[in-house]
């Protein structure tokens, strides 16, 4: 069975037929994606499935990874953080390393990138490649996966010189976009329903997390999955839990996140969270390795409600993942959470621990409502935030780039009868 068939089981045949039709003009076209890592992180996760899906649609698709030394990644991590608003100075020495690394990679990728019909450059790491391809054949697109709505301006000004000459760029939300002298497409990210994070699990695999993390299957459970970061407000989640627990004494809370080994701020926040949780055996703080996808998947499935009480958020794919498991989400009224949590339908938007606590109490007293909202949430994700929709919009963008900026582009095959309308 093909990969497309696997997705057809989830999305329906219509969606796959639509992809095949959109991809038909690109049969044999060369598409190259370039990013900075083959494993780990959201971009690599998407490309792991996006590339084979495009190949299966008849598009000659490949995936290149930019390589560099530690100083290069120190620089690009700084770029990532500054695009998200942190005011960090990046030294000229590091910027020189950035430019030289891109120049070196341009040489090793010269043939494949020169000949490509479409090149998708993901995030800032490989953004400076384009200037080394004056004889490029295809369209180059810069895909920004970061919330760049309030960047540290000196760094954005520096990066902009490399990004402006692209044929187009893609941002996840209009609010994240920067002004650039080319078409700016808006394509939300997506989740892969067949990845370990989201795949259906056998009952045994779900049940084992109760034992493993000393959770009581007979008592209500709420969960927030996020790194220990002030913007995710884990202490606010504990406050909300405590407020709700006065009314629902059997309530259990799991805060699941990764160990913040390379983030001094993360360690401080984790200490604050541990202190706030002290003395309550029903608060479970889980430090899970970055590849514990099946564990997180199971934890989401055994929870009654998922929280994502962020006070600042990019798109919030953990919300999408929770909704895919048919769970209502109580989310902060910020960023991409607003696009996903439709207040009173797929969950609730909350601005305070009090607001979150109120919704926890409401839902746990209305089990039918949990099911109703959860089912709506899953359908909403199926129709809007799966990788197949993401791919459809990439293909649509590719057609649009070939045929200009008109509002309406009508494709017709010359071997068909003239259209009636």
């Amino acid at each position: 069975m093909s990969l497309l068939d696997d997705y057809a089981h989830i999305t329906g045949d219509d969606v796959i037929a639509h992809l095949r039709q959109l991809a038909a003009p690109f049969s044999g076209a060369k598409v190259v994606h370039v990013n900075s890592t083959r494993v780990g992180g959201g971009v690599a996760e998407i490309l792991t499935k996006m590339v084979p899906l495009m190949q299966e649609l008849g598009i000659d698709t490949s995936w290149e990874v930019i390589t560099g030394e530690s100083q290069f990644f120190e620089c690009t991590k700084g770029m990532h953080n500054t695009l998200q608003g942190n005011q960090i100075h990046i030294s000229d020495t590091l910027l020189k390393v950035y430019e030289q690394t891109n120049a070196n990679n341009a040489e090793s990728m010269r043939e494949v990138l020169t000949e490509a019909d479409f090149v998708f450059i993901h995030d800032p790491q490989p953004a400076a490649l384009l200037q080394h391809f004056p004889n490029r054949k295809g369209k180059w697109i810069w895909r920004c996966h970061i919330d760049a709505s309030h960047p540290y301006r000196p760094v954005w000004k520096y990066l902009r010189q490399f990004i402006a000459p692209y044929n187009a760029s893609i941002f996840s939300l209009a609010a994240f976009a920067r002004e650039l002298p080319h078409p700016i497409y808006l394509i939300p990210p997506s989740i892969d329903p067949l990845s370990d994070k989201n795949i259906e699990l056998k009952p045994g695999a779900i049940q084992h997390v109760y034992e493993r993390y000393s959770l009581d299957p007979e008592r209500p459970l709420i969960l927030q999955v996020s790194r220990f970061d002030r913007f995710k407000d884990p202490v606010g989640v504990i406050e909300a839990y405590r407020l709700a627990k006065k009314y629902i004494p059997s309530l259990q809370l799991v805060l699941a996140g990764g160990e913040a080994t390379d983030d001094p701020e993360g360690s401080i926040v984790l200490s604050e969270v541990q202190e706030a949780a002290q003395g309550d055996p029903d608060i479970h703080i889980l430090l899970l390795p970055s590849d514990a996808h099946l564990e997180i998947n199971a934890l989401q499935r055994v929870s009654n409600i998922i929280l994502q009480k962020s006070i600042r958020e990019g798109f919030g794919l953990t919300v999408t993942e929770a909704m895919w498991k048919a769970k209502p989400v109580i989310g902060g009224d910020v960023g991409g959470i607003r696009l996903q949590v439709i207040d009173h339908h797929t969950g609730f938007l909350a601005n305070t621990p009090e607001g979150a606590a109120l919704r926890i109490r409401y839902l746990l007293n209305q089990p039918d409502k949990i099911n109703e909202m959860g089912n709506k949430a899953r359908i909403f994700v199926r129709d809007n935030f799966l990788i197949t929709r993401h791919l459809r919009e990439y293909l649509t963008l590719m057609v649009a780039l070939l045929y200009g900026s008109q509002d309406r582009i009508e494709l017709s095959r010359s071997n068909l009868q003239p259209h009636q309308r």
Partner: protein
Amino acid sequence: MTSLENVHINTASRTGDGPGPFFIKDCALVALATGKRARMLQEFRNELIDIDESSIYHHYWGGLMLAHFDEPEFNNDFAAWIRHGIHDVILAERIAALDPSDFSDLESLRQEMIELIDMRIDECESLLWMRATLQFEFIRSQIIVFDTTRLLQHPTNLASAIEHFSTTSIFYHFIDARRRTAHANDDFSDWLAGFGAEFEPLREQIAEIDPYFSSLTELRTQLARIFQTYFRETDS
């Protein structure tokens, strides 16, 4: 990429020349930032005056094709922002009540929105300087239309074929058609009109469907019900 050489584009709108076959088409939408944003009602009004029509189209109809929720509180993005960004329920309700299918073109719809905003500012002057709690982002979209290579020879084929239309095909033939056909009709009605008075009762039933309050799946179901009932009754 040889197949691209076999593809040509036609960006012009087409109208039917007679009751030939019905060519089933499909479409896809992709959204673009316009770079225009508003943080106050007055700023919103000023941007609305000369924002590209494709942006008005997107904020009224694009939601059906792009990320959207099937039971929205408001049927257009403008009303939703006025309610949740500006927090003016009265203007939100008035803008929400504007049904784009009641207007001959998007320009008339634009003018009516501006009129409603001005009227509301006259009623409540403080709206002039009230800062929105959410920024409004004007977005536009590009529509790509393509052949499915399927066609219907006669209206009786509609009864069995309609259920196999994709939802995006329904969007193209039932929603988008209103923007490109001579009388702002859907494609089905436009095609049936080519057969003279024969299908007039069917056209009347199609005209009863309100496209503004249904998801694309619901529209397909409603159309299927009408076509199947009509042709079953006329057969008997």
